[in-house]
């Protein structure tokens, strides 16, 4: 009797642990997802996730979640980028696949794309001035400036996704 009770208790604990893990584990559903230092696209990128990678949910706030990545980095991602069910890696952009490496499965190729290398090649071939892109990307407000501005415009009162 005592043995049966012990077995049942062990089974219940194992089941609970499995359920808890299922509640906190998510899989990346998009080709590439940046993990950021705050709840907004303008915060610093602390890690980059690729499709199919598994993360642990640490905290949920609005439409955003804090995750722990496979590289033990912790940061925010938009919850819609994650799936509660396992996702197969790959299957990303055909466009970026045309360049050396495969951005859908290779972190190196994904970061090359993020740096605009393919667009730079195109601009060079067409005789366009790529410094326009660099200037635009390099002259956006910082995250503290945006946060201060949001407070001032009443955005906080309107809430955020």
């Amino acid at each position, binding site marked *: 009797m005592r043995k049966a009770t012990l077995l049942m208790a062990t089974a219940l604990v194992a089941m609970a642990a499995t359920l808890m893990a299922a509640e906190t584990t998510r899989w990346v559903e998009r080709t590439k997802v940046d993990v950021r230092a705050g709840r907004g696209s303008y915060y610093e990128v602390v890690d980059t996730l690729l499709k199919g990678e598994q993360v642990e949910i640490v905290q949920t706030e609005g439409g955003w979640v804090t995750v722990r990545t496979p590289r033990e980095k912790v940061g925010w991602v938009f919850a819609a980028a994650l799936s509660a069910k396992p996702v197969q890696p790959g299957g990303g952009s055909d466009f970026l696949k045309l360049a050396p490496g495969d951005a859908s499965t290779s972190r190196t190729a994904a970061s090359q794309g993020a740096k605009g290398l393919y667009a730079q090649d195109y601009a060079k071939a067409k005789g366009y001035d790529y410094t326009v892109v660099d200037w635009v990307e390099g002259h956006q*407000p910082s995250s503290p400036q945006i946060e201060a501005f949001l407070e001032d415009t009443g955005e906080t009162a*309107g809430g955020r996704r």
Partner: protein
Amino acid sequence: MRRARWALGGIGIALLAVGCAGLDVGNVIEGGMKLIQSGDDIKGAFTDIDEPEEVELGRAVTAMIGSRYPLLRDEAVTRYVALVGNAVALQSERPDMRFYFAVLDSPDLNAVAVSGGYIFVTRGALALMRDEATLAGVLGHEVGHIALRHHAKAIKAEKRKAALKTGAEVGASFTRASVLTPAIGLTIDGLGEAALKGFSREEEGESDVVGFRYAVAAGYDPAGLRDFLKTLQDRGAKETAVSNFMSTHPGTEERLKAQEALVAKATTPGRRNQARFQQALAPIQKR
């Protein structure tokens, strides 16, 4: 709700034609069929795009736009426009998308949404605005195009056209390097033209509706976009730039009516921030 059928006015400048003239239709079809038979290599012309692709195409199109219209390299003005844009974009369906805002130093009336989150507004369009709520309404409309992925359809269409054209040029001897790289170039060329020309009437109407919602959620006066459209209508007969814009982008009246209906239903007054807008844009309003 009535489906958007308003003509738009995504606010556009005149553009050049995409150079497809002179193609032999028979060769195009034959070349396209050969490409289609190549399986994986041509798959990209028909599948959905993802965000890294959107961004990379957006960068290339931004370089193209920058080659046609001078970029206003004023740090303070750019930062201000981007602050308003980010406040609005944060309320969109894609708050995790990185948005970039900048001003084109042109007297033309235009605001352009490029795939990947790159949004431009001309000095001429800013000159017609009187406060931050108006700017938020216009930028909200442009953010809407990106949030609703209106570029996806254009990208897929341009990929198909590019695949057919490059197939016709190289026949059966294609390889990834010799065929698909030119195809990417053609896709970007077509996208740049499409970005400047504006989207379909339905897509423009959809962006009006969601842009209104983003601006209101960000705390702005719901009448921002309506006021901009009203200004266009009132000044269209008097000013060349406005009348040129309205002649290539019909439907301002319908859009205005739709915005007035949305404003009438709005329950919050919101902010206009006129003084801050005028102070921030003083360096270019005087030109």
